[in-house]
């Protein structure tokens, strides 16, 4: 997936300023930067949540994503949410579509992986914050034909028990050859998970490279890590 010179502004704020990034298949690309640097805005532009104002994007049609503030279907159960995410369909088809055993089985597999088996039929709104974060991630992983996975701070708010489960799941997506773009503030996670990292500051890419290169970059240390 490639982007060229993406620009986006909200009123007077230039949230993205000529951002060009390149994410490879089968690699996990990290996107880091201080609060308000435009990371979420970039993902929102790439997933058509926001319309980009200038620039060019080359990406696959099928993507899945998580939102920084979980945007869940609160009155559906966990199972229903995952079933819905699997594959979008037209209204006509959907009227006659009753979930098949196969569909339910693959949804349940993911539910098991994120250890929410006891909450399979719980309405999402009755889950705790951490559990909802897991549903957000599980829902994105349920999409069957996605080529790109965008994760906006998936680890924020996760318990220490859930973090390794999610790490494993993300690594599996990488092995499947998907493009994975992950926004994360925890440098340990960036170091262990990412193959390549872009650093955003005030809407500009100020550094890119392997995690170690970026984290040792002087400009990055000043702008982001405050060292």
């Amino acid at each position, binding site marked *: 997936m490639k982007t060229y010179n993406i620009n986006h502004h909200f009123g007077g704020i230039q949230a993205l300023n000529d951002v060009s990034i390149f994410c490879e298949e089968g690699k996990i690309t990290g996107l880091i930067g201080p609060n308000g640097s435009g990371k979420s805005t970039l993902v929102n532009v790439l*997933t*058509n*949540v926001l319309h980009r104002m200038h620039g060019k994007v080359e990406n696959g049609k*099928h993507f*899945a*994503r998580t*939102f920084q503030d979980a*945007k*869940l*279907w*609160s*009155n*559906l159960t966990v199972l*229903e*949410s995952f*079933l*819905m*995410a699997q*594959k*979008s*369909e*037209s*209204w006509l*088809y*959907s*009227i*006659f*579509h*009753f*979930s098949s055993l196969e569909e339910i089985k693959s949804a349940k597999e993911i539910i098991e992986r994120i250890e929410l088996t006891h909450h399979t039929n719980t309405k999402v709104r009755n889950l705790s914050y951490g559990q909802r974060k897991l549903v957000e991630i599980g*829902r994105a992983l349920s*999409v069957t034909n996605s080529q790109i996975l965008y994760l906006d701070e998936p680890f924020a708010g996760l318990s220490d028990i859930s973090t390794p489960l999610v790490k494993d799941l993300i690594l599996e997506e990488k092995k499947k050859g998907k493009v994975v773009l992950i926004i994360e503030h925890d440098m340990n996670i960036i170091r262990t998970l990412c193959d390549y990292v872009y650093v955003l500051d005030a809407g500009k890419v100020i550094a890119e490279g392997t995690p170690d290169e970026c984290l040792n970059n002087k400009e990055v240390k000043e702008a982001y890590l405050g060292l």
Partner: protein
Amino acid sequence: MDYIIHILIIISIFVPLALSLDLLVGRTGILSITHAGMYGLGAYTTAILTKTYGVSFLTSVAVGILVTVCASYMLSKVLSRLKGDYYTLGSFGANIILFSLFMNLTPLTGGPMGIFNIPQAVIFGIPVTSTLAFLLVSLVFMCLVIIFMQMITTSRFGLIIQAIRDDTLATEVFGYNVKDFKTVAFVISASIASIAGSLYSTYISFIDPSSFTLNESIFMLTMIIIGGFASKRGAIFGAVFVILLPELLRFVGLPDSIAAQLRVAIYGAILMYLMYKKPTGVFGNYTP
């Protein structure tokens, strides 16, 4: 006995109205208040076609559905440009426009005088003459609507419209054409109301615009608010309750003039009590 049959017929017409309104308001989260207008389209189509043109009842129902599908499709396209409260206000306007059409297209609708002597229904060659026979017909209709609602709400369509209600943006991001689903929910809901209208007009054999006012739409909304959103049991309970309440008041022996006002006061009191104690309604499991 006739009195009880009458009440049962009215219930079996209003339960489908409440169920179909709930599909739109409770499940899809579209607060549209023009259901009585759609009900009126069916009622007038059947009245005009069977009386003036001697068309058979079932054909008139089919034409009524067709008219309503077209009208609700266009209406939904127009309203979809409006957001939130403005959508609801727009739907108010739609009901008022339909009402004034019924009122003013005098050559067709009889204007304020309405249409009299609407012929009794003949279904598959069998004339539905007694009220008991009509009750049977309307009960069959009600059961079909309940079965249809059961099917559509348990199908993937049912999940998708609820997802749209809960988070429209997320539903779009997961690839669904939200606009299409909203339009279809609107059209299905309106079509069921139209059939109910056709039944009503042959049953009562007289219609005038007063049955299809904005107030009437709000009356239907009251049913599903009391019963609870996104719940079939709720819609059924709400319709039965709201229709039986004035009859019960009559039983208590209150004169009609007082009962009519007391009725409205009681609805108000119940709604306030529910908002305070149980904002989801009696059976609902969802609060907007």
